[in-house]
């Protein structure tokens, strides 16, 4: 009876809370309709046969056909190696970024962000130019007499590794950086004054505290790498076929949605197992980064695996510290440190060289497409022959390419507008209001970032096929908005968190109503963040191949879709011209967005 009384008393309060949260509803309904519903449907579909009866036939087929299992193993193998290499190469760069002056950090971060946003297609194409049989690398090696015949860099495992590590490095670096920046620089200094040598203070203190970042980066890279298909398709050989490529083939050649759904479930289960192991070992909270992550509780690790891991981990770190210090001792014996004379930090110098080499590996390849696009020859070659604009003329003279370009701009522009409206409104509610299940709602909105894009694309294809949206601009915009809206939400939330809400209260007290306050006080202050979100959304759409691969075709292609077709069929310098155009646009947008974002958070802070 008392329960009923309290329920009766509660509604007015919660009702108003739900009513006040209205700006988040459009996005919520959108995400449920265009993301959750179709993805759930395609996954559920895998458990039914063509007659609509429950059946595990699809899974039986996967289990009994060796090629699928083999593909799964190869997918894990490729993702695993990619993760290991990306973490190894990313750590020194993240360390440099976290421990250099603010100015240096800003410019280096931009160098890392640029490839993060630059089209996978363009970057993969750049590797084809650089590492092909007649590519720049082979020409150089041949002319120097180091090799007698061209080395096979691509169309094999090496090629896939180069392409995938290159693709995943920015993600790895940025994830590790967020944790490293929260490490108090005094801790290493303290360790040094307490008597630790450089090696011990690095491994036992800094490295130990950066571990959550390393683990989070590993998880994100691994999960993302599982869903890759562009790089293995273009840089790999027959053996390097990943599960996403099989899903694409099943849809495009067999149009077998239930079976594609089953493969998608397999991919998700694989990712889920990795998530689960990660959670058991380290705890999910470390994923969010920040200060709490660096305090990864030693005793919090409850399971036996975790304790064993922690035990061996600590020993390993101690050994690493000891090894580095013996190496340091050796160096000191060769070049003794003298207390009467300043000495150069040799380890810092080595770190800078390694770091800059990796940043170079990250940034330089894409630049190779620019000179190639100006060749006057008929083939892609490096160095290019002569100079001409003929490939730009070919590009602009081709109806297909021009239409694809125009369509890409229209779709990206519409996507950016819709994403910004939906995302900003939701961000206001998420930052400013108490809301039941806020974390769950946020995870829902951000889920498209983690879920393999291919699964979203297949699900949308299935949905659109029945709604007649395949090949329409509307369909493409809706699909791209699912992918782009998380970036808007994240960016606008970040700016709003630093915005002093008392400014709004001041405006109300001075006589402005809520709408006037929004337009005259709040929006002008957070404008930078909103525009940055708009630009990030634009790039996300402009650059997308995965969704476009399914919901466009023939006369309704976008630029990446058109590029993909050509890359598979005939590689010619037109692609270099197109790539250069994409590169220039994306670079300009990223720089503009990043500058706006920084200025916005600097002012608000």
């Amino acid at each position: 009876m008392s329960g009923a009384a309290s329920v009766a008393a509660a509604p007015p309060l919660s009702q108003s809370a739900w009513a006040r949260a209205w700006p988040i509803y459009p996005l919520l309904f959108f995400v449920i309709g265009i993301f959750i519903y179709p993805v759930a449907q395609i996954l559920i579909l895998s458990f039914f046969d063509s007659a609509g009866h429950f059946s595990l036939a699809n899974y039986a087929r996967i289990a009994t056909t060796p090629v699928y299992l083999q593909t799964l193993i190869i997918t894990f193998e490729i993702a695993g190696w990619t993760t290991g290499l990306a973490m190894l190469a990313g750590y020194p760069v993240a360390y440099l970024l976290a421990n250099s002056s603010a100015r240096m950090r800003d410019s280096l971060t931009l160098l890392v962000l640029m490839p993060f946003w630059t089209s996978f297609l363009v970057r993969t194409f750049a590797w084809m130019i650089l590492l092909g049989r007649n590519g720049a690398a082979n020409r150089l090696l041949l002319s120097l007499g180091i090799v007698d015949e061209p080395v096979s860099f691509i169309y094999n495992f090496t090629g896939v590794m180069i392409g995938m590590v290159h693709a995943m490095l920015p993600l790895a670096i940025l994830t590790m950086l967020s944790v490293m920046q929260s490490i108090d620089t005094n801790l290493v200094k303290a360790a040094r004054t307490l008597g630790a040598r450089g090696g011990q203070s690095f491994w036992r203190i800094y490295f130990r505290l950066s571990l959550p970042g390393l683990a989070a980066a590993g998880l994100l890279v691994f999960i993302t790498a599982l869903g890759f298909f562009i790089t293995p398709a273009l840089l790999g050989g027959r053996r390097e076929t990943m599960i996403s490529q099989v899903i694409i083939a099943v849809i495009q050649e067999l149009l077998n949605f239930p079976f594609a759904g089953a493969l998608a479930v397999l991919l998700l289960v694989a990712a889920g197992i990795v998530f689960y192991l990660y959670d058991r070992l380290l705890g999910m909270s470390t994923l969010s980064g920040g200060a709490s992550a660096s305090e990864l509780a030693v005793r919090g690790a409850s399971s036996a695996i975790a304790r064993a891991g922690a035990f061996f981990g600590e020993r390993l770190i101690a050994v690493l510290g000891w090894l580095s210090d013996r190496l340091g001792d050796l160096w000191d014996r060769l070049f003794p440190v003298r207390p009467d004379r300043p000495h150069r930090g040799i380890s810092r110098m080595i770190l800078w060289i390694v770091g800059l080499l990796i940043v170079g590996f990250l940034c330089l390849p894409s630049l190779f497409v620019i000179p190639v696009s100006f060749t006057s020859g008929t083939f892609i070659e490096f160095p290019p022959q002569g100079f001409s604009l003929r490939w730009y003329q070919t590009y602009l003279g081709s109806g297909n390419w021009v239409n694809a370009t125009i369509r890409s701009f229209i779709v990206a522009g519409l996507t950016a507008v819709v994403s910004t409206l939906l995302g900003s409104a939701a961000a206001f509610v998420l930052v400013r209001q108490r809301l039941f299940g806020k974390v769950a709602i946020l995870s829902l909105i951000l889920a498209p970032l983690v879920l393999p894009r291919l699964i979203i694309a297949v699900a949308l294809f299935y949905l659109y096929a029945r709604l007649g949206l395949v090949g329409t601009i509307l369909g493409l915009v809706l699909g791209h908005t699912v992918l782009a809206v998380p970036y808007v939400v994240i960016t606008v939330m970040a700016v709003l968190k630093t915005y002093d809400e008392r400014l709004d209260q001041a405006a109300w007290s001075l006589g402005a109503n809520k709408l006037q306050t929004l337009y005259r006080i709040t929006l002008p202050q957070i404008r930078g963040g909103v525009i940055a979100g708009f630009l990030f959304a634009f790039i996300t759409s402009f650059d997308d191949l995965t969704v476009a691969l399914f919901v466009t075709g023939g006369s309704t292609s976008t630029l990446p879709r058109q590029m993909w077709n050509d890359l598979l069929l005939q590689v010619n310098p037109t692609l270099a011209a197109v790539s250069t155009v994409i590169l220039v646009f994306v670079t300009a947008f990223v720089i503009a967005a990043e500058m706006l974002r920084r200025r916005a958070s600097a002012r608000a802070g």
Partner: protein
Amino acid sequence: MTAARTKLSIRGATKHYGAVTALADATLELSEGEFLTLLGPSGSGKTTLLMMVAGLVPPSSGEVWIDGKLATYAPPNKRDIGIVFQNYALFPHLTVRENIAFPLQMRRMAPARIEEEVKRVLEIVRLPHVAGRLPRELSGGQQQRIALARCIVYRPSIILMDEPLGALDRQLRDQMQLEIKELHGRLGITVLYVTHDQEEAMAMSDRICLMNNGRIEQIGTPQELYFRPKSVFVAQFLGESNILDATVRLAGETVTLAGPGDMVLRGRGDGTAMPGDAVKVIIRPERLRVLSEDEPAENVASGTLKETVFAGGVTRYFVALPDGPVLSAKQLSTGARKEPQLGDTVRLGWSAEHALVLPQREART
């Protein structure tokens, strides 16, 4: 009494950052068991000097000697020093016990002895029950004591403290001041302390090194700095001062001056003042007396009472002299007696001994 051993000697230490001079030609000695405070406003170079001693900032020129050994460019782990950082810099992933054991492990001490030593210092800082906790589970004051314990456990030659009480609230700060002072006396440790809080510096230090704009202004006991400041900056930074412009008429032990307006003043000089020199006269507010009618004094100034501020035990009077300057006088509150009213003409008096004559210097920038 034999001279105490010199623990730290800094000779002509200088640090440039590009065109900026953070520290210019600092020379300083610290004896065994001494508590010396680097005091100064922010940007005065005190932290640069401390970091130089720690080996975390290499000097541009000059020398640092620790315990009789040249250590100018020695790495921090080879210096035999300990630092208590402003934010304590306790390792967040290690328990209190592991934090305190860290320097001993780095020195390859046997585990059994480490356990003993950790127990010993935890007793000293009176926190034996927190050994198994993580730093974030401790209060600010407890973290402070653990940071101190981590430092004293390996008995370094010098302990450096960089504004260690800055993060604590007022009451806790007063209590920790006493505790650190008491530990210093009990353990006989040598301390180089940095703060911008003059009261903290005076309460804790054997000697104070007052710094300004990258230079050492004056080194001496708190009493020396307070009663015999060598510059206007020192007088202004430590305690309160009334400062009057004056011109020297007659030089000597006691200087005769032409004060503001047509006042004639007498003050104590440092022997450098020559007739005709423009000088500053420094008088502490508590040395000014409100004179009763016809009461004589060596120096007398009369003016209008502008403001009276009653602060319990003491009362302040602000008296405007006819030609501008306002003098502040601090008296023990008398309570019952007839108080002068605002607007009354008040006579202030002070002895020549308490009027310090300092050469007028251009303010350094």
